[in-house]
């Protein structure tokens, strides 16, 4: 299970958390505004907190400081 509180604390060091939670049973999404770091920084954080539970990052975009990412897992 994603440690949401720890994840949010990490993310908040680089921007504002708009959404960070499960989107559906098979997907987890993160939406940040005013993201000041690069995508690699986000991926490093995601690798620690999200990837163990949602191993596939299907989308990562960073446009005008808005970062959006989706992570998926297979149905059981």
């Amino acid at each position, binding site marked *: 299970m994603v440690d949401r509180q720890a994840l949010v604390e990490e993310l908040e060091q680089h921007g504002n958390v708009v*959404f960070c*939670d499960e*989107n*559906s*049973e*098979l*997907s987890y*999404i993160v*939406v940040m505004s005013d993201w000041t770091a690069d995508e690699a920084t986000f991926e490093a954080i995601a690798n620690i907190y999200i990837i163990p539970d949602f191993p596939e990052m*299907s*989308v990562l975009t960073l*446009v*005008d400081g*808005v970062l*959006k990412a*989706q992570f*998926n897992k297979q*149905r059981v």
Partner: protein
Amino acid sequence: MIINPYVYKNPVCVPTTGGSSLIANGTTNVFEAPAYGLYNYSWSSFIYTAGLIGAARQITGIQIEIAGYTTPYTFNNQTIKLAHLAPATTQFDTAPAINWSDMPVSDVTIVKEFNWIITANGIIDINFDTNFCYNGTSNLIIGWENRDGTWTSGYGWAETISSAGSGAIQYLDANYPTGNGIRISNRMNLRIKY
């Protein structure tokens, strides 16, 4: 300048009623189809070959298969387009044009403009406002334009089956996407209503 060499004869629309069997019963989740809830705007498009569609007929609607939505979930300002596609074209280009300008299409028809309120997952009925007269020989291309303008969590996915180059997607927050999309190798599970 792109010259469309595709010429076809006028179709004869058989006034039958019923529906096809489900075209594909895949279980691959494609979140970007038919509309992608993570972004304000999105586009998806899929090719179905003539052999899958069957004889000439009036297509009055479609059924698609969705899952994973927290209901109710609403996509506002949706547009579905259908068109004939030259029989020799069975895949999208590697950089598919969102406006189909790189595809030999004809009879492009807006069949449905609506606010899509999803109240349940599973097989979803979509009845057209304007029927599409399918000619029985061309491939069929479906386009789905999501111009909602907002994104909301709780979105799900379309069930699809693997099929090389038969799908295309794009998504954006700033505005409805233009230019090229991203080719994918999936197409939505679909049933033709007639």
